[in-house]
């Protein structure tokens, strides 16, 4: 330790004597390290942002819908679902046969000219309705799209408690409803009503609350008449930019108090009229049950702890529900389990993203979110490599600056080296002095660069709204890089100094 403080004393003395050169050489390292830390922060931020966006868009979400239906592919002729006459999986690709149905994907494969459907396909006026219409399925327990009442609160509870890897479970009932502003009955809006639980915001990760918040667990337990408006609904009923929290809205002639407005923070799903998330209102499932005297659920929404397990867990849910509903092996499910990509492509995925996905993948059957995330990640990695290359070049320049300073200083300080040798310094003492100087210089430059990088990334985040994240690891890497740079840059000058002949050095002019 003494030896080190010693070296440090010698080196800092020498550095102090050449302030201008020291500062300039240090700046080189500072710029390099700053670029390195900043680019790492940007890359990490982009990674996080992609992950967040995908999760926000529902990457780890599974939706269980009551009822089941299938589509007969008979040249545009629609007929009610008939599970008795299931022919083969290829002829009836929509059959959810003890597995995950692949609704969105098969649509693309089976149509001659695949088209992307922005929201729910019933909303598309140009679509050929090749599925049962509402009138076809009314009253038919096998004719689903949520109209059948086969799911119960107990189902939700069992999924919550018995399947590992499940993160959150929210049960839901869904209705169409007419809303009226209590204070101004001319303001009306016909929209989707979701009866749900207080966990929903943690499931829908892409939600933000511009006004108020989601209803609480206690409000659900008390069957309170409270309501959260989707962004679109809030804008239609109260106007844009107006805080409706505390206002009363009439639903089924009952007053509901608005407690919050929900918007999206994901580019993968933006509020538009007609969508299921933001052109919708949310009320406690218990309130819906008690007001309408219901006990069944339309949907159970499940999130998994990791996006990679979603398919697996979806299958577990299928077998669990089949068992609970007492469905024999020959019978089809009385519910639909949809996960991941099907959900995304079915609704919420922006057309741009859908086009990228479809353009990149030969068949939609192979689409997984991992692949989607991978292709985004690859683009991001290219960017990262570019940034890292720039940072590497600036570090290299910084290193050359340090080496230049040291070489210059070896020449300039030849007499000093001679004197130090005359009074007893060994070659190794001289070498370690120069190396210590360089490392000290680079470390100082590195620390300064890190501090500046923190400010730079903070302003990038603040001004351009880029997502950045400075990790401890990147700081450690930067500091180590700086130190290694110092050593690397100083080896040659230090050797030259150490090999000087004291007599010649002392006579050097």
């Amino acid at each position: 330790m003494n030896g080190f403080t010693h070296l440090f004393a010698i080196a800092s003395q020498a550095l102090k004597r050449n302030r201008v050169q020291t500062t300039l050489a240090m700046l080189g390292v500072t710029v390099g390290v700053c670029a390195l830390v900043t680019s790492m922060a940007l890359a990490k931020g982009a990674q996080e942002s992609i992950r967040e966006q995908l999760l926000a868009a529902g990457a780890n979400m599974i939706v269980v819908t009551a009822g089941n239906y299938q589509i007969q592919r008979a040249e545009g002729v629609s007929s009610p679902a008939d599970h008795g006459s299931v022919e083969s999986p290829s002829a009836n690709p929509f059959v959810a046969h003890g597995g995950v149905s692949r609704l969105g994907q098969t649509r693309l494969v089976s149509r001659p000219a695949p088209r992307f459907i922005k929201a729910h396909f019933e909303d598309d006026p140009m679509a050929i309705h090749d599925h049962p219409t509402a009138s076809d399925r009314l009253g038919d327990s096998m004719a689903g799209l949520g109209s059948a009442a086969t799911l119960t609160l107990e189902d939700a509870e069992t999924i919550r408690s018995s399947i590992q890897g499940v993160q959150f479970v929210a049960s839901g009932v869904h209705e169409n409803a007419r809303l009226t502003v209590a204070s101004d009955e001319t303001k009306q809006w016909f929209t989707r009503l979701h009866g749900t639980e207080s966990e929903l915001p943690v499931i829908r990760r892409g939600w933000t609350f511009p006004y108020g918040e989601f209803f609480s667990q206690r409000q659900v337990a008390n069957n309170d008449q409270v309501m959260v408006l989707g962004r679109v609904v809030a804008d239609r009923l109260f106007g844009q930019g107006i805080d409706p929290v505390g206002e009363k809205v009439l639903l089924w002639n009952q007053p509901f108090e608005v407690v919050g407005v929900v918007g999206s923070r994901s580019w993968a799903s933006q509020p538009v009229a007609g969508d299921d998330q933001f052109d919708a209102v949310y009320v406690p499932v218990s309130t819906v049950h008690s007001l309408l005297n219901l006990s069944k659920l339309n949907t159970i929404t499940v999130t998994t702890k990791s996006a990679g397990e979603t398919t697996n867990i979806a299958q577990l849910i299928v077998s669990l529900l089949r068992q609970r509903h007492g469905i024999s092996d020959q019978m089809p499910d009385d519910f639909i389990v949809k996960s991941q990509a099907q959900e995304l492509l079915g609704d919420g995925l922006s057309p741009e993203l859908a086009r990228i996905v479809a353009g990149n993948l030969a068949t939609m059957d192979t689409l997984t979110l991992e692949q989607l995330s991978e292709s985004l990640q690859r683009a991001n990695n290219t960017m990262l490599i570019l940034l890292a290359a720039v940072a590497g070049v600036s570090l290299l320049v910084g290193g050359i600056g340090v080496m230049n300073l040291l070489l210059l200083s070896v020449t300039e300080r030849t007499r000093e080296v001679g004197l130090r040798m005359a009074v007893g310094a060994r070659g190794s003492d001289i070498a370690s002095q120069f190396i210590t100087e360089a490392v000290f210089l680079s470390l100082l430059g590195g620390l300064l660069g890190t501090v500046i990088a923190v400010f730079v990334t903070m302003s990038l985040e603040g001004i351009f709204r880029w997502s950045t994240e400075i990790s401890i690891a990147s700081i450690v890497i930067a500091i180590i890089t700086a130190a290694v740079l110092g050593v690397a840059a100083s080896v040659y000058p230090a050797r030259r100094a150490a090999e000087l002949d004291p007599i010649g050095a002392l006579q050097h002019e």
Partner: protein
Amino acid sequence: MPVISLQNVKKIYELGDNSVHALGGVSLDIEAGEFVTITGASGSGKSTMMHILGCLDRPTEGRYLLNGKDVSNLPKEELASIRNKQIGFVFQGFNLLPRTTAAENVEVPLLYSRPPMAASERKARAMEALDSLALTDRAEHHPSQLSGGQQQRVAIARALVNKPSLILADEPTGNLDSKTSIEVMRLLQGLRERSGITIILITHEAEIAAYGTRIISVRDGFIVSDTPNTPVTAALNLEGEPAAEGALA
């Protein structure tokens, strides 16, 4: 036992096909407490002798005993350590580190002590050495803020800081005016008288050589004369010079 014993020391430089005999075979004993001045014209070999005596260079042939130990064939590292402990150098050009305080300059040899010396002890010993040369109030000055005489005194303090047995002074007055030269010579004389340190001084000026107790002349790599001398006392020249008195105090 002599402090220094050179036994038929030769130094030969090979320059292409020619070999230059810088020292042609020098034998010399110097006892403790002597003040030896070595004179000679440039190219006489006195500098080469100085380098060998100072363990900065090794003889090509012959033996060099320093305090009874043969140092003629020691590796560089051991020579460095001998220079550090046993020899104090004073140079013509002072060789003080610029932009470094007098105290820090004096400390330099202590930085290379083995085992390493604690910072507090280094400081204390540097101040002690400066004290002994009446430079206490100049300890925090940079060389550029000091006169030539003061700079050379700082350099002498640096030579003394490790308490060597031998001081090697290479033209110590070469960059000084005559008055300051006399001050420095008196200072060296005083040191020898008080502490009994051995001093070897190289000069080409006869006046300066006259301050020694023994004068050796070198020419063409050989000792041509080696005579005891009654040292000049420059007291007459320094009458009424308080600075010089202070320096000797």
